[in-house]
């Protein structure tokens, strides 16, 4: 009798497993449906809320720290010194960002990274700007150092972006010296790949790689990285080029969304 129950329970487990597998594939097929968008909106609200609580705690923590510092003169001096250094670093970073804003013809929307979703090596960043801030799908995201990626999902007050180190990310790029055009993608390594550069083109490590401007998504001239390694394969038409990204993807806190007119127009055309 026990064996029969055991068999039944094993069968029910397999049936349930089959059900969930089919359901997962069904969801993958009908990817961005309305119900899922509603669920995503709710989850993003929770993440935003947690982030604001986290910030409040941080502020509260620093105020408590300040009170303690007032009582202890020695600690106050050392902590104040550390704080000044932090501010100095932040100041340099913000100056760079401001410089970037001045040097470009595009409008930028400043955004903070409020969350990070990671499954294995695949990372998506959650930003605190959304369609209510004139941000649209496919708008490029940059820092003062270079290109980070583009927005893929835009909700009213948050958005989720795809970084360059994603298998599905492809960017039309140009080698700055030779002006040769290729495609930057990612194949699971620490660096990016620059594909489709013919073997007879001279490429040396250290050469900058920028966006080509041939796509409707990324404007021309945004730095992607520098050439790290170049390999010539005798029996292949193209070189194997590894690109060291300009942006350190692990420590991104503040970014700028580039408010490109093309992304705006594409979105308007789609809604019409």
């Amino acid at each position: 009798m026990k064996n029969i129950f055991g068999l039944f329970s094993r069968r029910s487990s397999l049936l349930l497993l089959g059900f969930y597998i089919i359901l997962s594939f069904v969801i993958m097929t009908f990817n961005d449906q309305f119900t899922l968008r509603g669920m995503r909106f709710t989850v993003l609200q929770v993440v935003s809320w947690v982030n604001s609580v986290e910030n409040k705690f941080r502020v509260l923590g620093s105020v408590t720290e300040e009170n303690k510092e007032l009582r202890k003169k020695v600690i106050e001096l050392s902590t104040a010194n550390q704080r000044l250094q932090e501010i100095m670093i932040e100041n340099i970073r913000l100056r760079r960002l401001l410089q970037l804003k001045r040097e470009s013809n595009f409008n930028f929307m400043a955004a903070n990274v409020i969350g990070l979703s990671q499954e294995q090596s695949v990372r998506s960043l959650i930003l605190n700007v959304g369609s209510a801030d004139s941000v649209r799908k496919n708008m490029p995201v940059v820092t003062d150092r270079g290109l980070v990626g583009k927005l893929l999902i835009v909700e009213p007050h948050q958005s989720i972006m795809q970084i360059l180190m994603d298998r599905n990310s492809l960017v039309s790029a140009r080698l700055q010296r030779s002006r040769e055009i290729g495609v930057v993608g990612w194949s699971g390594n620490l660096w990016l790949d620059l594909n489709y550069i013919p073997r007879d083109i001279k490429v040396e490590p250290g050469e900058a790689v920028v966006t080509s401007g041939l796509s409707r998504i990324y404007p021309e001239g945004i730095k992607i990285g520098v050439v790290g390694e170049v390999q010539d394969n005798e029996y292949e038409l193209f070189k194997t080029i590894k690109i060291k990204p300009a942006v350190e993807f692990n420590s991104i806190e503040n970014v700028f969304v580039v408010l490109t007119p093309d992304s705006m127009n594409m979105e308007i055309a789609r809604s019409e």
Partner: protein
Amino acid sequence: MNKISIRYILFFLVALLLQITVVKYIQIFNWRPDLVLIVLVYFSLRKGPNWGMTAGFLSGLVQDLLSTHYIGLSALSKTIAGFVAGSLQGKFAERAEFFLTLLISGLVHDFVYFMIYTMGENFSLQSSIFLYTIPNMMYTLLLGGFLYYLIEAWATE
């Protein structure tokens, strides 16, 4: 819904939120632990495969909603990880059960995930395994060992 079930739900919610908001502060180089997997394996070992895969499906779906890959991919891999963990209930000596189950279901989870994510694409699976999967798994195992005693104490209180 009894007190223990509410605690388990809380574990998952806390793990999901920490995974998104706080784990970035404890990353080493590029490596991050998978808190959701730790809680999922713990839960599946206690409640069996049916509850394990249900919890895996739901927690994976929430993670999918916050990422730019196909929605359903994490749900699928976490469902299978929950099923594997639940099926391994009682298969190992009590002391090593959690670690071995976490290791096996973690590897199955990663295998399913990458198999679908890289399907038909030029993707260096080998370097991905060495650069991300193994270090992430080691980190998850180390942190899992520490959290196991915390969760165990709180869940069985």
